[in-house]
Every structure is written in C-alpha cells, then in structure tokens.
C-alpha cells in the first residue's frame, strides 16, 4: 500500500491540496521568549471558530493539523478543541512549551492519540532556558512535561532554536535529548517578527557558529547537499502554499506560518476559495526559479525559504540574505571536506 505514496504526493502537489496545515489557536503565552516571532496582541480563536475552520479544512483536503500558539494550553477549552479535531478525523500534532502539562492532565492528553508533541527547550540547563523564555522555573516544568509524555508513550520531541544565547550548550542539548530518550530538532533559524521588526535577529548565530553547527549536524546526514550537487539547477520548490498552509489566531490564511503574507480570512471567504483563487499563491506555486539567483555560484548549496525572503528582504520571490549566508557556509564546509579527503 505504501508504494503509491510517491504518486499520491505528486497528486497532492499538482492539485495543490493543503494536506498539512498549521493552526495558530492563540497568541496568548505564559512565557516571553527573547526570540519569539509572534505578534503580542493576544488574539485567539474561539471553539466555534475552530469548528468552522475544521469544517473548511476537511473540505479542502487537510489531514495533518498542527496546533500552535502562543501557548495552546493557556486556552481553557483546549481539550474540547483537541477532542473535536480528533473526532473530525485530523491527524493532530501540538507545539507547546510544556509548562502547563502536568500529572493531572497527562491522561487526557494520552486519550487524544496525538501524532506528535513538540516541546520547546531553549537551553540544556535551567539558568539558560529560563533566561531565554523569561520565566524562572519554566525549564523544570518543560522537562517534566517531556518525561510525562514519554512515560505515557506519547510521541514527543525536543525543539530548540539555536542562537547566541544557547550556542555554548549545543552539544549538551543533544545529550539532554538523548538522556530523555526523545528525538530533537535543533534549528539555527531566528525569524524576523511577524510585524516586520528585526530586533530579534541580534540573537542569530554568527557565521563561525553556523559553520560549526552545520559541520557537526548536517554534513554526515544531510542528503540535501548531495542532491543539490548532482543537480545544481534544482529549483527552489517549497511546500508552502501548495500542500502546506497556515491559519492565524485571527483566521488569516498564510502559505506557511513562516510566510505571513495574508491571502484572505476564513471568516470572510471560505478557505477553499482563498486557496484556489489567490494570485500570490499561483505565483508562489509556479515561480520555483528565482531569476536573481539563477547564475549564483552558491545555487547548489542554497536552502532558500520564501518566508524568510519575504520577512527579511521584503520579497518572497527575491534573494534571501540569510539563505546566501547559509549557502556560503555550506560551500565552505563542502570545500573543506573535499580538501580533507
């Protein structure tokens, strides 16, 4: 039965079926992370609105639904919402800081049969994590949540944004995930805020740190670089706006949570109408080659994200300055490895 997955994937892409959607339930949060990209307007969706969105997404073809915030467990009706979405046959994942998961609600979370729970951990020790998230005692609660989830046999992973503030603990973070017995996702991308401000970029790793990170993490396991070397003309295709979408806590539809270009609002126009008629999406789906990047010597190493290009450089279809920096680092690593061989 699995052998036809590649055909189904091609169908999904060709027909632009949004199989994978991130739904921002709330922007309220009990933490104040220094690198957070979110608006601070406390917007959130009501249960009635979530039901409406669920109906629209089922009709549009969505299967995988990820709930994010803010902090989703600050919503008093979070469990009613989750049970409703599961009964609506979505494969449900949640992203949370874990501080509100405890012994008294872990049984309910277990009953949700979640696909995945991602817990943000921003340091290997309490001092670092608590400083980054602006809340003393948060680390202990988040680590406790990971243990509770793991013990309840709920798939959980540790998610970390690697930045200036925690780079020194990079290896210890991996060790921590290993000790907890959970997979980890360490991402060195700090995004500009959704309101366009770039103050948070001061937390980004410098080129030397990026070099160390990619050399350690990517060189051994990343097939991307090999693929790109084999086919340097490979386009910059991205699932955003094709098989992936995002809906904000105000009901605004974006191609991706990292590409906050408003396409419409689900409370004004049905999701399917927005998804099928957006001129921006048509351009995003068709324009997989970026003219400005076409003759770039770093094209083979480029992992350009249209969202970061949009947020940071003002044009989703133009050059992404952070992608240029990353590509230069990739190239340096590959050249060094070639010399070593």
């Amino acid at each position, binding site marked *: *039965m*699995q052998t036809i997955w590649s055909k*189904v994937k091609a*169908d999904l892409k060709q027909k632009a079926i949004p*199989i994978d959607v991130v739904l921002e339930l709330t922007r309220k949060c009990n933490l104040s992370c220094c690198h957070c990209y979110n608006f601070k307007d406390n917007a959130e969706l009501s249960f009635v609105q979530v039901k409406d969105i669920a109906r629209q997404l089922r009709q549009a073809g*969505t299967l995988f639904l990820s709930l994010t915030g803010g902090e989703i467990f600050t919503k008093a009706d979070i469990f009613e919402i989750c049970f409703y979405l599961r009964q609506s*046959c979505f*494969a449900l994942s949640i992203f949370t800081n874990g501080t509100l998961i405890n012994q008294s609600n872990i049984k309910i979370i277990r009953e949700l*049969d979640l696909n995945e729970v991602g817990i943000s951990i921003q340091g290997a020790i309490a001092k670092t994590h608590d400083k980054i998230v602006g809340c003393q005692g948060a680390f202990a609660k988040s680590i406790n949540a990971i243990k509770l989830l793991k013990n309840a046999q709920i*798939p959980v992973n540790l998610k970390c944004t690697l930045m200036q503030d925690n780079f020194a603990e990079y290896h210890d973070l991996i060790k921590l995930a290993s000790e907890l017995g959970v997979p980890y996702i360490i991402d060195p991308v700090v995004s500009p805020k959704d309101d366009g401000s770039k103050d948070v970029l001061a937390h980004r790793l410098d080129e030397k740190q990026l070099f160390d990170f990619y050399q350690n993490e990517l060189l051994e396991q990343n097939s991307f670089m090999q693929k790109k070397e084999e086919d340097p003309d490979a386009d910059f295709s991205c699932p955003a706006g094709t098989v992936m979408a995002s809906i904000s806590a105000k009901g605004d539809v974006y191609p991706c949570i990292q590409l906050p270009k408003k396409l419409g609002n689900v409370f004004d126009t049905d999701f399917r109408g927005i998804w099928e008629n957006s001129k921006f999406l048509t351009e995003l789906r068709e324009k997989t080659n970026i003219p400005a990047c076409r003759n770039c010597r770093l094209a083979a190493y480029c992992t350009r994200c249209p969202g970061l290009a949009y947020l940071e450089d003002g044009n989703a279809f133009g050059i992404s300055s952070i992608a240029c920096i990353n590509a230069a680092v990739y190239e340096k690593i590959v050249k060094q490895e070639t010399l070593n061989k």
Partner: protein
Amino acid sequence: MESVKTIIRNNKAAWQQVEDNVIVVTSQTRKMHILEGVGGRIWQLLENPMSRNELIEKIQIEYDAPPWQIQEDIDNFLKELSEKLIIKING
C-alpha cells in the same frame, strides 16, 4: 471470514479522501496507509458498520468481476486492514 458479523472502521484513525484514494493514519502505530481505488471505496462504505456479506454485495454491484474473485480479494484486503489496525472485525 464468512462468519464475520460486523466490520467497523478504527474510529480513532485519522483519514482524508484524496481524489480516488484514502489516506489513513492509525492512532496506535501513527503509520500512514494509502487505500487505492476499491480499497478507498471500501473505506467509504464502512462509514456505517456492516457485515462481510453486505460489503461483498455492495462491491459486486459496483465492480465488474467474478463473484468468487471479489470475495477472495475482499477477504484478503479486510485481513490486511485488520492486521494494520485500520478496521476492526467482530466475529
């Protein structure tokens, strides 16, 4: 298989119809399965629990194949779905 009383979907499975196929994710294993063509149709028909014989009757009406072959194929398919926790067979 002939003694099967009721076949029911795993009501905890997540699923979505994509054109003629149905993608099913089982809650116990978190594995993704794709039910093509007739498989997807069987999933649709099982929206309401039914017996093996009822299911065979409905498929025989819709598909042009010898009855013995439909029965054999459906029995094998139901066994596979049951092993993968996609459906539950009550004997």
